[in-house]
């Protein structure tokens, strides 16, 4: 047992040295955990931002002017005033995401209660912005109309307002969540590349054969890669969370960081195993590259980091429960933003650990059976 641990330790240290002597890799690792996290987290606009809107005002009444003046930056760009003929070309070219069309006699009809109608054209291909934006616009127009009508008439509308409070991220600052999603993506990507591609390289350079004639077992070889590369990624992500996310981006962390990194370590256990597994399937580096994209892209897109899980079909949601990153996104959100403790996130920890054990076992079995073919 002791010799086994010492072998695992020694081989792992060797992996660390190999990485240390590859300056390009070090630069790239540093890049993805700093610049890349920072820029792409900040690229996600804060809620509705600079939405392109145009308005056709045929009514030209006090009410319609009120409405026009209620759209202003930063949520919206200053509205372009256009004529009805410009609606279609403008939307086709993608110049406007929204066009609000106020018809002739709108104010009159509103005051008379004659089924006034206002038309909003939304470019539905703009996905998220289209949906949140049109909701926003409806609010704004409603508010303006109500206020306008109330001035003309007795107080008939109930004085009920909605006090909206977003918990855990009061301003709905997207860069917080964006940063977390980025770090999770980088963790998955790096751990798969570092273990998997490194194993393929050892095979292509013949060094794996060398290991096999030594008194070490496949289990030890694999374990050494898991711990060493896992450690590198864990350290890099810890630095990233502390220096970039906390110090530079001022994202408040609600919960316990050690708990979060404990979760990250569990995730790394399974993603590094996944990398090794992929390397045992691929016969050369180009094949590995393809396989990696096949695995990483769904992990990134469907774990809940880029779109909410609730919006995915049930089947996809169920399948993605087998991905460690899904649980990582959940536990990351819970710990970092909602300040959840272990009593709350233990199911995610358990799931991640179980997935890790399964992945490791499968990868080890596959590694054992293919390793002699590698030499």
């Amino acid at each position: 047992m002791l010799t086994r641990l010492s072998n695992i330790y020694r081989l792992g240290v060797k992996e660390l040295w190999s990485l240390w002597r590859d300056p390009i890799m070090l630069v790239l690792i540093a890049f993805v955990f700093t610049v890349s996290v920072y820029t792409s987290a900040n690229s996600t606009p804060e809620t509705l931002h600079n939405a392109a809107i145009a308005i056709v005002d045929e009514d030209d009444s006090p009410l319609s002017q009120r409405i026009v003046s209620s759209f202003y930056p930063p949520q919206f760009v200053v509205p372009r005033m256009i004529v009805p003929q410009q609606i279609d070309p403008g939307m086709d070219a993608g110049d406007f995401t929204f066009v609000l069309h106020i018809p002739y006699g709108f104010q009159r009809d509103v005051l008379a209660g004659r089924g006034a109608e206002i038309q909003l054209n939304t470019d539905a291909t703009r996905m998220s912005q289209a949906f949140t934006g049109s909701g926003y616009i409806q609010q704004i127009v409603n508010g303006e109309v109500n206020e306008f009508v109330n001035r003309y008439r007795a107080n008939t509308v109930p004085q009920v307002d909605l006090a909206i409070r977003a918990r855990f991220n009061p301003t709905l600052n997207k860069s917080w969540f964006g940063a977390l999603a980025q770090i999770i993506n980088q963790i998955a990507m790096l751990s798969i590349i570092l273990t998997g591609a490194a194993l393929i390289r050892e095979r292509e350079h013949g060094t794996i054969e060398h290991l096999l004639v030594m008194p070490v077992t496949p289990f030890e070889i694999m374990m050494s890669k898991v711990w060493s590369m896992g450690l590198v990624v864990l350290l890099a992500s810890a630095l990233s969370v502390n220096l970039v996310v906390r110090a530079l981006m001022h994202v408040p962390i609600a919960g316990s960081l050690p708990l979060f990194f404990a979760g990250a370590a569990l995730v790394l256990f399974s993603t590094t195993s996944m990398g090794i597994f992929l390397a045992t399937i691929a016969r050369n580096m180009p094949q590995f590259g393809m396989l990696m994209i096949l695995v990483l892209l769904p992990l990134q897109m469907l774990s809940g980091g880029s779109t909410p899980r609730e919006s995915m079909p049930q089947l996809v949601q169920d399948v993605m429960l087998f991905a460690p990153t899904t649980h990582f996104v959940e536990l990351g959100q819970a710990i970092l933003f909602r300040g959840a403790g272990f009593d709350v996130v233990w199911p995610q920890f358990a799931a991640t650990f179980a997935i890790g054990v399964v992945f490791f076992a499968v990868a080890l079995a596959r590694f054992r059976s293919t390793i002699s073919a590698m030499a």
Partner: protein
Amino acid sequence: MTVTAASPPSPLASPPSTPVVSVRGVWTRYGKTEALRGIDLDIPAGLMIGMIGPDGVGKSSLLSLISGARVVQEGDVRVLGGDMRDRRHRLDVCPRIAYMPQGLGKNLYPTLSVEENLQFFGRLFGHDGPERRRRIDELTRATGLDPFLSRPAGKLSGGMKQKLGLCCALIHDPDLLILDEPTTGVDPLARAQFWDLIADIRKTQGQMSVIVATAYMDEAQRFDWLVAMDDGNVLDTGTPQEVFDRTGTTSLEEAFIALLPEEKKRGHRAVVIPPLEAEENDIAIEAQGLTMRFGDFTAVDHVSFRIRRGEIFGFLGSNGCGKSTTMKMLTGLLPASEGKAWLFGKEVDSSDISTRRRVGYMSQAFSLYGELTVRQNLELHARLFHVPREEIPARVTEMVERFDLTHVLEELPESLPLGMRQRLSLAVAMVHKPDLLILDEPTSGVDPVARDGFWRLLVELSRRDKVTIFISTHFMNEAMRCDRMSMMHAGKVLDSDVPQRLIDKRGAKDLEEAFIGYLVDAGGDTRSPQAHSLQEGAPAMSGEPSHPDTGGAFSLQRCLTYAWRETLELQRDPVRATLALAGSLILMLVIGFGMTTDINELSYAVLDRDGSLLSQNYALDISGSDYFVEHAPIRDYDDLDLRLKDGELALGIEIPPGFGRDVSAGRQVSIGTWFDGANPSRAETVQGYIQGLHQHWLTEQVRRRTGSSAGTFSLENRYRYNPDVQSLPAMVPLVIPLLLLMLPAMLTALAVVREKEIGSIINLYVTPVTRSEFMLGKQAPYVGLALINFLLMVLMAIFIFGVPVKGSFPTLLLAATIYCISATGMGLLASALTRSQIAAMFLAMIGTMIPATTLGGMTDPVSSMEGGARFMGEIYPASHMFTISRGVFAKALGFSDLAGSFLPLAISAPVIVGVAIMLLKKQEA
């Protein structure tokens, strides 16, 4: 067959007046190491020139400078009458030079067949079809490769690889042939055939100059003119006879040692082997009927032998005869298909860790960790073999002294010359003091002095420490030193005995003759009979118009040659292409169905502190919505907090006490809502929904109370282009550009950097192909593959997702073509910047996935971004492709509507490819 001299000595009475190569004051440095230190040398034309010297003295560096593969750092190199620093001259002259780099088949493409490799080089030099056919037939017939035209180069034996390399070098009738250790690692028979071939060619093409670097002194002895080098300097030049006269020796081996500076000579003395004193029954290795089959192919066929403890047992055989496989079976690396082997009386079992500790193995290929220093390599192995911790420093010191590695202790093995690396490999194999050493061609490529030193160590180990040594070799003088040896051919042991007795059995004059005799008997002479005679004046060898295309301008033929080669390689690895095609379809399915933005079934709960009719009415209104699913009522704030924290609730609503009463009285009341903001995009949707519902409730209340609908209006929201607000029609046009970027970029990135890692990039350095021809040629097949990919995805969009192309398909196709050029261009860029496949892969990943998914406007429009991200989004080709794809698929647009997005796309493609070409180097630095 007899082994003839490489070439009849040329008449040296009249050496040609102008030297073919003239070198003045040349220095080459790699970092701190000085490989060449002010070389001055004139090499006469039309001769067979031998370059000899220990490892790492700069022979290869000098040859690569002469061939134009490496940049001249300092000094003057004139080849064939021009300056090699001048780009124009290099282009003019490179079709007249042929260069075969060190290493077996280094400039060949292993997955391509013999025929295809030759066709490739023929095309690069601009020969037309019939001309190529004629030359290939001539050359393969002469070399005896003609029966193997369809065999992949990677599956040829070492000797055949070198012959093929030579054919590829000769296909364009060079005036100067540069061979860097062409016979290292090649068995004696193939070696003899190789030199016969060169001699034949020189007979028909007398003016050709040949420069050969070699570690075999018996070969060099037959050359016309020699250059002896040491430590970056030229020691001596002249005919072999002149060298003998000057040093007062009779063989080149002795002469070479005599030429060495004093301090290097000091360590050298002849290898003396004391007689073996071994117990007849003390067996270290025993093999019985050992057999290894790979599919139909039997690599090792019932091999049996017994090796006594302390014996040095040699394996001699042609390349690919099964020596390495036998050794691997003994180490347990390969499980034997049949037969058994025992080490120290214990049966070989790959799972038996304890036996492994008694064995030291050194494989044919250098397989130490290049990233660890010499000391770290030794320490790592000592630890893995569980040398007690306190003994390790002493053991490492002992090894380092014994193998003379003291001054390179902290260096990386990659920076060491081959001979020194071999010594390190041996040191590593011995650091745990094994009882048995299995050495697979340990001295290949090692110079004579170092080789003798190596053997003295082996002898000492065997005789003093009683270490059993099982060694394979191509050197006859080494085989002679073995206590016993086996001749092997085609998986079978032909004979085993004491070397001298083998010679006597055959009645041969030396071991080489005996060995070749055995091989010929076993049918190992692969040359077809007519191969010996090259037809006189055969045009392939006799300077017909041999340099048809030497221009530096862009040549479509050369570009297409690379495209053809790349296509072949793609065909040979169908898994790669299949993964790329199937992968994109699978991913499209997953992402297309998986990523939607309609959010529903949000969980919420109510904390109703009022309990009035009105408050219940409010709660009921929400539960009637499709978007929300009601959970058990909230008890208090703590309950709310906990349930939000563990993610059970997305939304909590608190209706204050007295709500119904206050509303009726027209007093201001406020309903509280709390929702989970951890995921902002979901939170925004929740916020939008709840505000909408609230508004709706208010309007209802007004209508119910006043009966009038004054102040009400309806906001008609028309979702354009996607009236049902489905996710698929919105997602599919985005997924196509995304996948069209990532997969082709990844494939292309590896295509170029692979050549760098494997070594065939040398063909870019020494053939007339230009950087742009090389890059564009390599890119073309991947653009083609990407377009197939694109068409498949469009078909899938239409028939599986039911998302029709509403606009102009030609527009989409045009955009996709330009976009694929950009995408593969990004791959080229990644591989131009990096040197290892891992780094290229990583860079391609970072350069495509992250910008495309976050910056390219996939989820959030570029126009709403700010700062650097906005700038990146504006110039990134994916952003424009997203716009075009969305426009054509969903908005029924055509070219004129989308011209604004075409322009940046059309600019980006040549810019990306151009930068990639500029970053690639035409010479080694």
